[in-house]
């Protein structure tokens, strides 16, 4: 069984390497290039809301850096690194939405479903392998890019600080926690579980709809509109909106996190203890059953 799952996961990686290996890596490379360029004085990024430039390191700033408590210094550095990684996470997030919508639709469209189903792999195993890929494997594929980005950012900043005599080389590295890698990976796994009903809904549409985008959107829009008309409430949209965002920022999360920070493992445990999380899990279980049933019974290979 482990060999079968390993094979199924390898197949997913091979099929979707552009979305989950090449695209995040390309984004990470661009970000690395931009960061290095800023620190080496080649360019800077200044907008009304955002300023990423070495000009900020004036005398006052340097003094504040040296006077900052270890905790404050660590908080700023960790938040900055998380912030830098957001474009990669957004790229993968869009990749996951596209993957979810296409994974069962594409196999119908090119009729490869006939080949997959000629192999002794049950529909349930196939669906679980895709879940395992979304929840567990994709976050692991993202991590090397995050680590690369953080390393380049830390190294570039350190070289800049040393060469400009701002702070010692060790300044940043003493506040860089390798354990944050684990926090990030656990947070991404938690995120995949939190957003799972959305991914599964899109997968479900791919198993039956001739136009998967319409198949996914129309029932949701209709439900949202009907709910507003009949009950004057907004629960369905609220559910979707929350699941598309970061789990630690959801309305149902017990702590209001105002600033960008690395989540603690205790935050994840807190999330697992919420009712909203388990409602999502129940919805996910129902959708898994629907996907297995529809994939095993639908012989319509027409997908536009």
């Amino acid at each position, binding site marked *: 069984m482990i*060999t*079968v799952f*390993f*094979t*199924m996961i*390898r*197949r997913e990686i*091979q*099929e979707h390497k552009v979305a989950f290996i090449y695209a995040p890596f390309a984004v990470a490379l661009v970000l690395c290039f931009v960061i290095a360029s800023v620190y080496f004085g080649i360019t800077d990024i200044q907008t009304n809301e955002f300023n990423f430039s070495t000009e900020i390191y004036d005398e006052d700033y340097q003094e504040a850096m040296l006077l900052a408590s270890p905790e404050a210094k660590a908080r700023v550095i960790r938040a900055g690194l998380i912030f830098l990684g957001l474009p990669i996470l957004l790229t993968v997030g869009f990749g996951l939405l596209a993957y979810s919508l296409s994974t069962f639709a594409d*196999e119908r469209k*090119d*009729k*490869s*479903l*006939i*080949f*997959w*189903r*000629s*192999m*002794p*792999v*049950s529909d349930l*195993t196939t669906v679980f392998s895709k879940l395992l890929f979304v929840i567990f494997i994709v976050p692991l594929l993202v991590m090397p890019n995050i680590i690369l980005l953080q390393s380049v950012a830390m190294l570039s900043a350190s070289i800049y600080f040393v060469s400009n005599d701002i702070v010692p080389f060790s300044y940043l590295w003493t506040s860089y926690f390798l354990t944050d890698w684990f926090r990030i990976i656990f947070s991404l796994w938690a995120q995949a579980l939190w957003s799972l009903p959305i991914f599964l809904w899109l997968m479900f549409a791919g198993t039956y709809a001739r136009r998967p985008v319409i198949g996914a959107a129309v029932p949701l829009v209709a439900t949202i509109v009907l709910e507003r008309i009949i009950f004057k409430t907004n629960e369905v949209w609220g559910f979707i909106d929350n699941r598309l965002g970061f789990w630690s920022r959801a309305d149902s999360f017990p702590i209001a996190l105002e600033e960008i920070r690395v989540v603690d493992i205790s935050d994840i445990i807190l999330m697992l203890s919420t009712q909203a999380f388990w409602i999502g899990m129940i919805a996910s279980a129902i959708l898994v059953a629907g996907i297995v049933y529809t994939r095993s*019974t639908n*012989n319509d290979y027409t997908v536009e």
Partner: protein
Amino acid sequence: MCSDLVIKATGVKKRYEDNYALDGIDIEVNSGQILGFIGPNGAGKSTFLQSVLGLINTEGNLEVLGLDPRKDRHKLLKEVCSITDVAVLPKWMTVDQVLNYVDGVHPGFDLKKCLAILSRTNIKRSSKIKTLSRGMVVQLHLSIVMSIDAKLLVLDEPTLGLDLVYRKEFYSQLIEDYYDGDKTILISTHQVEEIEGVLSNAIFMNQGRIVMQDSIESINKKFLELRPTQDSIERAKSLRPIHSRMELGREVFLYEDTEQDKLSEIGEVRPPIIADLFMAIMEKTRKGSET
């Protein structure tokens, strides 16, 4: 050749809205048979083969290798291989990737054997399937199937869209390199003339029903085709043929259960080709239902 029961179908029905795609199919298939399903479009051939593979639900009783194909599809597919269309191998994969996939999920797949078969072709392991010609894809698919130690092989229009050379190659490779006398093969195809030489049994189907089923050996004994001499045509008609047709300006008669010696006296006698026999049986059935 052993004769274990591989498929037992009793009263198998499949209905799509008001139409019966299968209308009470009763079949027993023994191991070692190479069984051809012959019939026009909509006869129910593919529907029956799909039900054997557990891809669709049917009414009635259907057992394949002692298993219910719908409930035990996963278990059944360890013993059953199929090619239902040549164009279903995932186009994004490389040859190596598809071989490694099958190796990883199919306990009966022999990768070394498959690579040995492929080495006799022009297929490169690094090639993407979408870059292979249709014929090469068939060779690849057949190589995979031939490397799986299965008891039953289901071929539903396996050579559709292939040119004559590849079609001939497909069947000759299948029989020479795959068939060992114990394996059972079910074949459905429109190109009946290309498979009749390899069949041990044939089933004629029309409108979801079995019109006739028998072994080729028995069919060849039971049915005879006569090309009478010009002056023997009236005598040939008096022997009550079940069907007659014109061939190059010459009348040809088909007989059922008629002594060969009687026919030999008045013309050239030979077993009918399956396609002609099918047409004759269909016409006979149609006339029977009209009277």
